[in-house]
């Protein structure tokens, strides 16, 4: 580094990258500061980087009636853990079969998965099938099952498995191992990195998922964090536009969460994911650059 000459280009690069980083960071800083801003200041001055009279009342308010947010946290943690494990098991076993030369139907099954990436019935038929025939309305499974076994993930996993020398597999077969044994004792121990990468991505997806809840969940007890957040927002917005307000909402007007409460809830919700990203950053970046260069 000491030997490197400082050229105009590197200076420009640093400036631009720094500005872009700032642009990525500023909204988060504003979120933090708005969670510490009191209501009067919000109305009078608006959100600024440093609140004049910082207050922790928003956090107090969140933790005073913690039932809703704790419940939502519980739901999010549950679907993230169960969903990630299930997805890894299903995708890993499927990818193992698809990467296996002994699997007679691997072309057909690959196409079977692949086709769904190109064509779908559309969201309305999907919604009909899930609610009418699979009975997923207000069912925690609606939050867990849909993201499982995404063809993209299966193929990504298969790409990683192709990197494991197939001769190991053959050697184990000659020694008389069954396919199950090869899966558990040969491939699984060598596939820890892809499992970690895909696992992290899946967990991120579950933690941030709101789509399934939006479609299928109406019972507030089953709200994951994101949906809780979304509903607080919708609730406040609705009250702000008073033309939408009806008598039923007006009764609860005393309990309107202020902007800072929402901000505080947001921070509580994104905290775990950002922290775990800081831990897994290396694997994550590796996963992108490696997964990008296919075949």
């Amino acid at each position: 580094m000491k030997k490197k000459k400082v050229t105009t280009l590197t200076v420009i690069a640093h400036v631009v990258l720094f500005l872009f980083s700032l642009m990525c960071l500023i909204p988060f800083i504003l979120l933090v500061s708005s969670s510490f801003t009191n209501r009067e200041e919000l109305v009078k001055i608006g959100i600024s980087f440093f609140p004049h009279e910082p207050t922790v009342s928003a956090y107090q308010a969140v933790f005073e009636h913690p039932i809703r947010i704790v419940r939502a946290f519980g739901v999010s943690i549950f679907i993230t853990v169960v969903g990630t494990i299930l997805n890894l098991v299903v995708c890993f076993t499927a990818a193992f079969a698809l990467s296996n030369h002994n699997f007679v139907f691997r072309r057909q099954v690959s196409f079977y998965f692949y086709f769904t990436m190109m064509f779908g019935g559309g969201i309305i038929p999907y919604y009909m099938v899930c609610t009418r025939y699979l009975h997923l309305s207000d069912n925690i499974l609606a939050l867990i099952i849909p993201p499982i076994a995404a063809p993209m993930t299966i193929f990504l996993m298969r790409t990683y498995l192709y990197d494991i020398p197939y001769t190991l597999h053959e050697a184990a077969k000659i020694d008389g191992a069954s396919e199950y044994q090869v899966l558990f004792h040969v491939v699984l121990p060598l596939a820890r990195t892809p499992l970690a990468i895909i696992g992290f991505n899946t967990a991120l997806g579950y933690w941030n998922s709101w789509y399934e809840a939006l479609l299928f969940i109406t019972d507030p007890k089953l709200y994951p964090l994101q949906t809780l957040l979304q509903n607080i927002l919708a609730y406040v917005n609705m009250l702000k536009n008073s033309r939408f307000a009806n008598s039923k909402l007006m009764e609860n007007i005393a309990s309107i969460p202020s902007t800072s409460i929402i901000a505080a809830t947001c921070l509580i919700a994104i905290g775990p994911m950002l922290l775990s990203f800081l831990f897994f950053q290396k694997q994550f970046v590796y996963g992108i650059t490696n997964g990008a260069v296919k075949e």
Partner: protein
Amino acid sequence: MVAKAAKAPKAIEKGERKRPKWMSKDNLQLMSLVLPAVIKVFLFSYLPMWGVILAFEDFDFSLGPFKSKFVGFKNFEFFFKSNDAARILSNTMLMNFLFIVTGMVVSIALALLMYQVTSARKSMKFYQTVMFFPFFISWVVAARLLEALIGANGMITSTLSRMGIQYSFYNNAEIWRIILPICHIWKSAGYSCIIYYGVLVGTDATLYDAAKIDGASGFQIMTRLQIPFLTPMIVLNTLSAVSGILRADFGMFYFLANSPLLLKTTDVIDTYVFRAIQGMGNLSMGAAVGLFQSAVGFVLIVVANKLSRLYDPNYGLY
């Protein structure tokens, strides 16, 4: 145990001769391994496919999809003759086009600049970490962040009003043609520039040194050497993005710009169809639009794949 196992393959081979190959123990085991994924995909992707008949019916929820009246292409006709069609189709394509172009330019530029400062490890780590933050949050939270900037009490709005300009971003539809691409860049550029950066890191750095000795400027190295290295990835990404031009990022439009006042520029196919589910629109027509979207998407993907293989036989989208 080992000895017994060693003999096993031969024994199986003898027994196998009469059985077809797919009945072999190996294949049956592998089929059992792929089965859970096959079932899940069948239930959640293939079952809804016959649901496209909804698009050809005058759907009545109480009668169900089998007994509702069959109306042929009426729903499509109705949709394409309505004012909605022009609006949501042009919005979807224009917005996606803006996303593709701006996203590509910014992420390539970032990747090239990042390559310039690769040796500054500490700064690099900072940039990469911070640029990934937006990628890690959902659109729900992003909407909240956007509000902290341009909402009624947001920093930009209140700064403007202190300067004497009263401007409400959530009342002006046009400005969202600029806001949303910025949001898209903000959320995804950090992620996609890493892909390009990864390609650059994989190139032979001695080439750049050689070019430098021959008198090439840093800018020339970028345009004459590095961008050509990135071209396959650019072509691939553009093709796959263009094949999804009728598919909008539903979360973005739904959470960021969910106001009746903004529909003029931010109503896209996905939000339109979603309103049908919520009961604010016609379900059959929504299904028809969804089918149209899928069908066009299918054709575009097949064409894009053909094109990318034409460009380089090794680069298929699949």
